[in-house]
């Protein structure tokens, strides 16, 4: 393993910038070849951004979601696949930190996450559950102090590149499908068999292949909190916030191209503002709602985490669902607005205004956890939502 980059003296902005440059430089090749953005991830490691959420007493910097989200956005302007890998990794790490501070094994893994800049992936979806995060078919099978787990995973993003997989499973072979735990499995504790290949429209560098895997690991590696609580109280909200931040970055990239195009047009015809400037202003109005929605979600998140019981209310969950659905839809509109502004220059894959990659990447946003599914769940919650003004005295 090569030594980690020296970050002494480098500001957070400089560290992020170094990773963004690596991501931008290789984004086209990553997309074209559908390969893992290894150069960008190495740059994130060299700049110690993979473990900076680990608490200081375990060697990290204690970074929170409000620190991670803007980095997802900045990376998203350069390479959406890199940004999404960074986001998904940090959701796993947040689960580890949230649930593992009392457990010696998990504390040691947190320490390693920062000293070795480990990469974490998750395996939540399973063949046969219809994409429902909150259901598992596979089960933890205890065998003395160890357990066995076999799972058919239609998707594990960067499953072949990760140092550990966070996998959901039923608590034991008799548990109902919704009684799940989250198992941390190190790369030398499982065997992956690739059963399908990720050759997708966009987000091609996430390498979200399908796998069957078998693992054997000590029982102490299972996170002590029920997955139902992890999902409801931090993981779903955290995912929506970080994913939305990635999509915001894709939209920002499209906005930058559209603006450059309009400026070039304005230079060509001094005296009369180009018609596309009005369209650019309309696109910007949409883009601002994305930024504002994310800022609002981060504020709600901070308030929830500051409350002593950290209990996510129905109102909080509804706000996070609304964030995901609204940003995924609006970011796509913004990229389409940019395409209309740049016209054929945007449609072309070559040249400074090419919007093909962002357009293909952003199309994943409404699908990764389908907006229809999220709205169906939100519809149930709307039955019991209590706006303050409607409360009985």
């Amino acid at each position, binding site marked *: 393993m090569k030594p980690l980059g020296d970050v002494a003296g480098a500001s957070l902005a400089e560290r992020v910038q170094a990773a963004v440059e690596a991501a931008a430089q290789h984004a086209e090749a990553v997309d074209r070849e559908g390969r893992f953005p290894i150069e960008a991830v190495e740059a994130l490691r060299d700049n110690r951004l993979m473990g900076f959420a680990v608490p200081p007493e375990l060697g990290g910097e204690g970074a929170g979601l409000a620190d991670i989200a803007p980095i997802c956005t900045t990376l998203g302007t350069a390479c959406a696949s890199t940004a999404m890998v960074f986001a998904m990794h940090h959701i796993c790490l947040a689960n580890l930190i949230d649930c593992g501070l009392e457990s010696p094994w998990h504390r040691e893994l947190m320490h390693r996450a920062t000293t070795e800049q480990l990469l974490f992936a998750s395996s939540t979806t399973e063949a046969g559950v219809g994409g429902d995060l*909150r259901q598992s078919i596979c089960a933890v099978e205890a065998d003395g102090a160890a357990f066995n787990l076999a799972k058919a995973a239609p998707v594990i993003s960067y499953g072949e590149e990760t140092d550990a997989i966070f996998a959901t499973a039923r608590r034991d072979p008799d548990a*109902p499908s919704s009684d799940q735990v989250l198992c941390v499995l190190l790369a030398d504790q499982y065997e992956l068999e690739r059963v399908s290949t990720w050759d997708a429209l966009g987000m091609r560098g996430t390498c979200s292949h399908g796998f069957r895997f078998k693992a054997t690991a000590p029982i102490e590696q299972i996170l002590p909190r029920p997955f139902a609580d992890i999902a409801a109280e931090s993981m779903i909200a955290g995912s929506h916030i970080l994913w939305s931040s990635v999509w915001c970055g894709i939209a920002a990239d499209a906005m930058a191209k559209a603006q450059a195009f309009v400026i070039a047009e304005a230079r060509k015809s001094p005296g009369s503002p180009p018609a596309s400037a009005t369209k650019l202003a309309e696109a910007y109005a949409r883009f601002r709602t994305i930024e504002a929605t994310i800022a609002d979600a981060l504020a709600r998140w901070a308030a929830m985490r500051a409350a002593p019981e950290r209990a996510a209310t129905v109102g909080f969950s509804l706000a996070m669902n609304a964030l995901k659905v609204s940003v995924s839809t609006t970011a796509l509109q913004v990229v389409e607005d940019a395409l209309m502004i740049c016209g054929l220059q945007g449609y072309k894959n070559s040249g400074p205004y090419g919007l093909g990659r962002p357009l293909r990447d952003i199309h994943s946003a409404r699908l990764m956890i389908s907006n229809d599914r999220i709205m169906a769940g939100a519809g149930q919650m709307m039955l019991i939502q209590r706006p303050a003004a409607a409360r*009985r005295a």
Partner: protein
Amino acid sequence: MMEKIRELIEQHAGLPPGAGEIADDTDLYRAGMKSFASVQLMLAIEETFEIEFPEEMLNRATFRSASAIAQAVEQLSSGSMAA
């Protein structure tokens, strides 16, 4: 009140047949209660006890077990009586 709550859990929590005996402190989510079932249960409790859960009580902890529900109902009923 406990008996009534247990009855409502039986009717609305949608627990799988193999869930076994539901004790006062049985974790209903672990026993298999899904989110829509918890919504139904909550609405039934509001109707039965003529209470309304405020936003800050609409979280998982409030509906985790029969005894947690009883505690919440008591808190809300005594609150309205005092008012």
